[in-house]
């Protein structure tokens, strides 16, 4: 028999309505919390952006390293910590409010000075000569003897060397270059190459640096981020290796044909870029030590490097031992510093600072000659970074190379 129970039904309906109302309030409160969270996050990001601006403004005074900024702001403040990452500065900015933190890591370097000379050749008491279809576009610092256009006997080429720009007198001594020595970050994790079980290691810059001791060959592996690869012997980097943002430290490093990547190399003896090798922006090659040993950098045909190439040592004592060769059709965009003998057969978009130049043919060796090479100072993307020792051209301003 169906029972009449209006009161029971009414209470039942009330219960259902109460549950619905509670659910509605819960969703509303969740929505509000989410909105507050996103608003706070937006504010933290804006603060973080402001912290970067402040850090850039104080770049020449170490970017307020370790300081807390905006402490006066209600509930939100930022801290900046700057360390080195090879030839660059690594800047970590944390902005926090109570338990929420926004962290961003940037790679910085000195901003490229558009007024940099195309060529700074130490005054080595010899003429500076250009020949063939050499193009030098920009100011040059050379010995007081000026530029001479010559014809090289035995070389068949179009004779139309061009220089546009002013000529200044250089010093007898090349500007001192602050040796670029690789400093290891505190508390790094040391690993052996055999410890890597996968063929990909990606280590964020907010984590501890991984220092991996490797054998002689790097192939079929992806290494990305906060990683330093080191070896006591020559490292051969094959085209199958994918390297991004890492640092390689070894006495000699050879990039084999077809390799493409972006990294920094610190070697004591030699770096060779085989043909069709591409080191993308921002890459740096440093070969240097104060030992009186041979040091070489060779960029073979059709290789490309976007960044900086540095060869340092005691150029006055060991000029003939320090050699850099930029072969035909190879291209460097950025700055070149060579405290030794530089042979330019390819092209440079940027600035060259060298102790001396040479051009070798099968039979002769011409000093201070550029034949069929080019240096174009103003053909450089903006913004770009520079690593160079000329005080006059230091900008003191930073450029963000990459957000890590």
């Amino acid at each position: 028999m169906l029972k009449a129970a209006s009161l029971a039904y009414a209470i039942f309906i009330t219960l259902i309505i109460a549950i619905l109302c509670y659910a509605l309030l819960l969703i509303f409160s969740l929505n509000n919390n989410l909105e507050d969270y996103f608003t706070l996050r937006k504010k933290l990001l804006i603060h973080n952006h402001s912290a970067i601006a402040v850090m850039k403004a104080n770049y020449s005074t170490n970017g307020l390293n370790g300081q807390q900024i905006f402490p006066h702001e209600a509930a939100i403040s930022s801290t900046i910590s700057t360390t080195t990452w090879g030839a660059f500065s690594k800047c970590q900015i944390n902005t926090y409010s109570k338990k929420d933190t926004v962290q961003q890591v940037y790679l910085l370097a000195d901003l490229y000075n558009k007024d940099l000379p195309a060529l700074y050749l130490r005054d080595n008491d010899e003429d500076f000569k250009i020949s063939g279809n050499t193009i030098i576009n920009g100011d040059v610092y050379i010995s007081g003897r000026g530029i001479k256009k010559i014809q090289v006997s035995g070389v068949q080429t179009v004779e139309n060397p061009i220089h546009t720009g002013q000529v200044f007198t250089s010093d007898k001594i090349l500007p001192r270059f602050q040796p670029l020595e690789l400093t290891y970050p505190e508390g790094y994790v040391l690993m052996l190459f055999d410890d890597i079980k996968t063929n990909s290691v990606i280590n964020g810059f907010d984590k501890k640096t991984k220092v991996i001791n490797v054998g002689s060959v790097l192939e079929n592996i992806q290494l990305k981020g906060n990683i330093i690869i080191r070896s006591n012997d020559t490292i051969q980097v094959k085209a199958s290796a994918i390297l991004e943002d890492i640092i390689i430290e070894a006495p000699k490093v050879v990039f084999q044909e077809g390799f493409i990547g972006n990294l920094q190399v610190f070697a004591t003896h030699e770096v060779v870029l085989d043909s069709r090798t591409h080191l993308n922006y921002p890459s740096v090659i440093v070969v240097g030590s104060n030992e009186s040993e041979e040091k070489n950098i060779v960029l073979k045909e059709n290789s490309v490097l976007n960044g900086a190439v540095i060869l340092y040592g005691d150029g006055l004592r060991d000029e003939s031992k320090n050699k850099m060769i930029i072969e035909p059709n190879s291209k460097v965009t950025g700055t070149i510093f060579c405290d030794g003998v530089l042979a330019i057969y390819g092209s440079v978009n940027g600035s060259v600072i060298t102790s001396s130049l040479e051009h070798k043919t099968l039979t002769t060796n011409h000093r201070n000659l550029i034949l069929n090479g080019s240096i174009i100072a103003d053909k450089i993307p903006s913004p770009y970074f520079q690593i160079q020792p000329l005080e006059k051209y230091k900008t003191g301003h930073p450029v963000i190379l990459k957000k890590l």
Partner: protein
Amino acid sequence: MNIISLNSRIKASSIVETVIAITIIAICSLVATLVFANVIHSTTPLNKYEFEFELEKIMESTLNNNEITDATYKFEEFTIQKKVEQHSPFHDTYKIAFLITRGKNIYYYELIKYNRD
């Protein structure tokens, strides 16, 4: 036919019981309507998202196009005021304040810009 009519006899509720039930449901519906209305009223209006979007555009334009001047941007339901001044504690920087007025609500955002960017 007789069996069905005997077994389906319904016992009616008393008038008092019915009145109480109707009252409870009425009160409950009223409370539910009030809660619903409040929730709907308190939800973020669409134009807040609109002003956030416009603010973001103005900030980006200020940073990327070096628009370092005071300006007022008027929209249908809100106004964004941009005020620029030198940021005194740190050289080479500007402080850019954004004041958004939306009805009775006022929002404030602050941004620092490096003047060589």
